């Protein structure tokens, strides 16, 4: 792998099969957004790509949890032009196109990761950073142009970019990005939730999230084996599932969140969740068989013989440069995989299960035990134990007379919080200091909290709740308020 610098941007390249691929990577992903600016990175990517002239070669862009990439495959001159246009656009975004691109994005409906993985991240981190993944937020049309410009100026700079090429840098290549330092990504602490926990969520299929070391051949191999075993049991043996997927989020240079999900036939989601849990638990108890390890090592050894893999290796190099992740060449990684023992895999999965979050689609109920035989507790949003003392607002009398849910629900306002007791009796409290966004819709406000709860303050639902609206507006940063998006019907 070769290295150079062009216009202040580090460039890594290695010879791959033609045609050449160029990838401009920025150390900016959805984790760098806030609830108020959810989607801003994707909007910037669209604004930049919208300036491209009509081209015939393969090109695209993507936004991930930690990075954003602009990439193209074609003749050297085509790549030079692509990169030049993208860089110039990032330096001077066409902000007047925000409305149009917001509509395009709403139509695209893209997600940064699988919705089950996204929910697992939200339960791990709350409504910030990685935890924003499943949220729509205020909507692309509610992101202020000034915020777009500021976000681009902070993250889409020379200092936060790396170019990778599957061939030598083409003649005339320029990267006219604005100057700027590489931003520091504050490591994100998980919510203080003792695992393992399970919760029923708005997810399409069961999933499992575990925390562990970022760089660990045993972990990687263990997750591969887990995927393979789940495919064997849930798909081949029981016919309950079609696909098993996995994803990781590199929370910081030493910690990763690993997620795995198993889709399920309708009505069999709980059974699949139990299989997921039991399979992971067995792997933690006994580790993989040597045959399973050998299979994974062989598969990797064969994969890296493919010359197209050079692109993936370059991606890892770019990430290492931008995010401080450790970089291993394919051969180095192969050597590490070969050295993995069943005991090491068992140990890392076992440790991971201590932090496990398990989600099942809504309506599912799980009765599981951890590896020490202790019942796995219910997780989910950070419900409070009791309703605090404060001013209580109830649904109107007529509603309470005719509707059982209305009789059970109440809203409680205190000096520093607003609390919903919902019709299930669950208590959702949001302290004003923990508010991450407030949607304004006529006289109502929907308050989104840092720990995953949301509280509707609606005078139509709760008689006299206008008083709570006033208190909320007095206590919470006005910048967090936004009108309901026009992009969702």
């Amino acid at each position, binding site marked *: 792998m070769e290295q150079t610098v062009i216009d202040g941007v580090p460039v890594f390249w290695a010879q791959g099969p033609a045609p050449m691929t160029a990838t401009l990577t920025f150390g900016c992903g959805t984790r760098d957004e806030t609830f108020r600016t959810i989607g801003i990175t994707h909007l910037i990517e669209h604004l930049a790509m919208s300036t491209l002239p009509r081209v015939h070669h393969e090109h695209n862009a993507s936004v991930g949890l930690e990075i954003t990439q602009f990439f193209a495959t074609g003749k050297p001159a085509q790549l030079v032009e692509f990169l030049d246009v993208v860089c110039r656009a990032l330096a001077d975004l066409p902000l007047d196109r925000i409305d149009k691109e917001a509509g395009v994005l709403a139509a695209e409906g893209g997600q940064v990761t699988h919705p089950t993985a996204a929910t697992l991240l939200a339960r791990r981190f709350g409504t910030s950073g990685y935890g924003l993944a499943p949220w729509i937020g205020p909507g692309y049309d509610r992101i202020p142009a000034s915020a777009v410009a500021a976000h681009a100026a902070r993250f889409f700079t020379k200092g936060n970019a790396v170019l990778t090429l599957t061939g030598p840098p083409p003649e005339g290549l320029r990267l006219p990005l604005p100057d700027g330092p590489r931003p520091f990504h504050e490591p994100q602490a998980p919510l203080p939730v003792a695992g393992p926990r399970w919760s029923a969520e708005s997810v399409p299929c069961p999933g499992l999230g575990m925390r562990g070391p970022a760089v660990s051949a045993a972990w990687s191999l263990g997750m591969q084996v887990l995927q393979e075993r789940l495919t064997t049991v849930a798909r081949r043996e029981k016919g309950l599932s079609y696909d098993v997927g996995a994803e990781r989020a590199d929370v910081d240079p030493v910690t990763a969140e690993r997620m795995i999900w198993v889709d399920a036939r309708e009505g069999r989601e709980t059974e699949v969740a*139990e299989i997921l849990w*039991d399979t992971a*638990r*067995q792997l933690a*108890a*006994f*580790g993989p068989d040597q045959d399973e390890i050998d299979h994974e090592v062989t598969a990797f050894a064969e994969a890296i013989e493919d010359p197209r893999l050079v692109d993936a290796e370059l991606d890892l190099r770019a990430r290492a440069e931008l995010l401080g992740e450790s970089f291993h060449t394919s051969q180095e990684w192969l050597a590490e995989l070969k050295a993995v023992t*069943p*005991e090491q895999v*068992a*140990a890392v999965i*076992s440790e991971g299960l201590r932090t496990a979050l398990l989600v099942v689609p809504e309506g599912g*109920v*799980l*009765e*599981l*035990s951890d*590896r*020490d*035989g*202790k*019942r796995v507790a219910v997780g989910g949003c950070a419900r409070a134990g009791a309703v605090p003392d404060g001013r209580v607002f109830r649904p109107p009398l007529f509603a309470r007379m005719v509707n059982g849910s209305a009789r059970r629900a109440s809203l409680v306002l205190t000096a520093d919080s607003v609390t919903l007791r919902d019709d299930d009796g669950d208590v959702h409290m949001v302290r004003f200091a923990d508010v991450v966004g407030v949607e304004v819709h006529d006289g109502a406000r929907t308050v989104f909290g840092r720990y995953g709860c949301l509280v509707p303050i609606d005078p139509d639902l709760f008689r006299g709740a206008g008083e709570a609206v006033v208190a909320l507006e007095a206590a919470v940063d006005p910048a967090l308020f936004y009108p309901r998006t026009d992009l969702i019907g």
Partner: protein
Amino acid sequence: MVRADLPSHVDPAWNDPELERAVRALCDGDPTPAFDLLAATREQPDRRELCVTILGQAGSAVLPLLRAAAEEQRDDVERLLLWGSALDAAAWQARGAAFAEHTTDEQFGQLVDLTKQARAVLRRAAKLAPDDAVPWSELMHGALGAPEHDDEGDEVFAQVGRRSPDLYGANYTRLQSLAAKWYGSHETMLEFARSRTADLPPGHPLLALIAVAHVEVHIHNLDNGNFFKRLWKGMTYLGKAPVRAEVDAASDRLLAGVDVFGGHPRWLAANQVFATFYHQLGDDMASKPSDTMRLARHLAYSGERPALWPWGYFGDHEEQFAKARNAVAGTGMGIG
């Protein structure tokens, strides 16, 4: 002489000083004596089965310790056996002792999930020690409470049969699985008890299967039908001539073999089963003086500590045991 204060979830109806020490050490957080004892029982399947079950009951309170120990040496059969047995015991404790209709979904859920863990651990032990019947015997518990599939009980019991067909615990569990309250009927259960005991030598503890089977029918009668039916059946079943004759015959056979089987690990437990039968018969309309005599003889071989079952069917097991002992105390047929 052993101390009488074992934890309440540990069945104390046995007399084995080494097991006593191992149980107490395990309860105090030291599993080493348990592992050593189990290693010493590899050629003693009856004792090994008892030890694994009892240590498993004790171990259910220290599951993290047993898990860690098993993870230290993943191919150590004794560690796996103890961990698996403890998970099994925890599963049944989570379920509770009530009949199925009084068991909550939550309790069943925990039973099923803990059984899955136990099954995986015990199967590994079975794989590592292919001649050992005890992993299979322990697997009987999961196959009873939360079977993986309909035939699991049959399959697992067949595995026991190939290795050590006369294991007391495995046969006791098998009989339970054939009872009407589980997956069988009175007829199937009684037939099993008769066929399993037909060729046993005098004194073999498995003769207790006959008494257990009739106690199970009695319990079923007490719990099913309208009030008067339950009352009448409850008062008369044990004293019916065929029942009495069958149990008396089994009792005679057991007592006749004390010289040979008096040291069997399950000798105390078997005698307590007969003692339960005859104690219950004492409340029956057809009770006879000879029943008291039999009760006294079986109690004499029952040791000092009451088994959790079948005494527990009729109330607190310690109270029932004490009542039975009191019933013979003034008769001149005293204990010992």
